[in-house]
């Protein structure tokens, strides 16, 4: 699980039937300090997040488990909209 910022949306007309009604967002993964971590990815969103929101996302089989249809062919999914997060590097000693 990781933090990411929603930076856009993705619209597809032709798609696999079980993807009908699944919102797709473009997210930029980042760490606790806001540093980007890897390239942007497209994530399925069951929570109505929008561009500018910070979200929590998962990869792999678990990504589909947050969706109404847990067998949708999805490998990146949003599981929470983050209100606040913090990480203090002083704890690293």
């Amino acid at each position: 699980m990781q933090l990411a910022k929603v930076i856009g949306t993705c619209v597809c007309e032709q798609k696999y039937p079980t993807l009908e009604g699944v919102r797709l967002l473009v997210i930029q993964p980042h760490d606790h300090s806001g540093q980007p971590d890897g390239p942007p990815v497209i994530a399925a969103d069951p929570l109505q997040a929008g561009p500018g929101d910070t979200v929590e996302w998962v990869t792999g089989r678990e990504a589909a488990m947050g969706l109404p249809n847990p067998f949708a062919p999805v490998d990146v999914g949003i599981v929470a909209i983050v209100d606040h997060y913090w990480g203090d590097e002083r704890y690293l000693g």
Partner: protein
Amino acid sequence: MILCRVIGNAISTVKHPVFEQYAVMVCQPVDPQGEPMGRSFLSVDSVQAGVGDLVLCAREGNTARQILAKPPMAEVPHHSVILAIVDEVELRGQATLSGPGE
């Protein structure tokens, strides 16, 4: 399993219902000397870890599911979980790391 230092947490109101009973912590992977290694990630806390604790994390869905899935929710979207709070790490007979942060 990954050795990590808990350095913060993430708070959400809108979330999948299975996240309601757990805290989500910001974990920074560290090497056995305590030096940060790679980028931080989020992990669901199953052992009441606190900020500053040295912990073991699993970043794999099936492990997380075995620990956190409870009937009737058998399918949960967890991918990373804190499994243990580390008291001490010993390397070649010498203690290199202790639990609580400085």
